[in-house]
């Protein structure tokens, strides 16, 4: 697992966004990376928020696990990088 740089936040930062999307507290949920199989709590994932949206990456292989883009009050969600989220 490589060290994150200061551009990265972690999953704690998107707790509010995740409640908006899923309707419940998700930072303690467990996600499995669809690329390398690493299992992590959402709070421990790498989060990048460059302004247009939110990208969540695996800490081990850097694969994109989730993306969220807000357009006109709607949140578009892509979870295809996850094998599971429970």
């Amino acid at each position, binding site marked *: 697992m490589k060290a994150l*740089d200061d*551009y990265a*936040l972690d999953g*704690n930062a998107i*707790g509010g966004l995740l409640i*908006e999307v899923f*309707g419940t507290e998700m*930072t303690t949920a467990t996600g499995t990376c669809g690329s390398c199989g690493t299992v992590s709590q*959402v709070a421990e994932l790498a989060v990048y928020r460059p302004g247009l949206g939110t990208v969540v990456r695996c800490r081990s292989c850097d694969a994109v696990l989730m993306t969220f883009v807000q357009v006109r009050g709607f949140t578009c969600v892509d979870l295809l990088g996850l094998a599971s989220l429970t």
Partner: protein
Amino acid sequence: MAGTAVRGRLTWQTVTVGSVTDETPKVRTLALKVPDWPGHRVGQHVDVRLTADDGYQAERAYSIASAPGEPLAITVERLDDGEVSPYLTEELRPGDVLEVRGPIGGYFVWEPDFGGPLMLLAGGSGVVPLRAMLRYRALIGSSVPVRLLYSSRSWEDVIYRTELDSLSDGVEVIHALTRSQPPGWTGYARRVDQPMLSEVAWPAAQQPLAYVCGPTSFVEAVASGLVALGYPAGRVKTERFGATGQ
């Protein structure tokens, strides 16, 4: 809107700023009057949203600085290139309103039955949720031993300095000043590194529980350092603020 919100859903609430306290030249604590605050767990945060005249909105997460049972407060560090923090630390006055939603988060929280001793490690404004933990510990009369290793640029940048100075009764506060030190300083005068962690951190054999909060590079270095000292990764809780100029 709060009255019609679905229970459990997160809704933006308009809150009124109560008192404003300068902690350091760049850091300010805002007490917030929330009409329907459901209460919070120590370590949680709120999202703050600002809306410009043209409708542009910016949102940021701020750790809750107060203990459960105390009035809601956040402590904000001004980032010179920030979109939100300059307004919160320079423009906002008591009586002004803000949009806030929360409480948020279930990972970086502390409950007294999680065991200990507690090893708290803060970089700059990363001390905010840890201060809430210390206040909560005192409020409920917990006797769990605590060490706080707190890295700041200079003595003037130490947030909650008077409050931390007054702590005793099982709480040790160890400062590291990375850029400048007052005359006669005998404490650490460098960034937190592995030798410092070895000297300060509770031995892993005591089954400590660690909370690490601060700029991402600080958290990365400290968390991996604690794991190298034998702390199980699951007993090292982390929260990263990104870059804060620390």
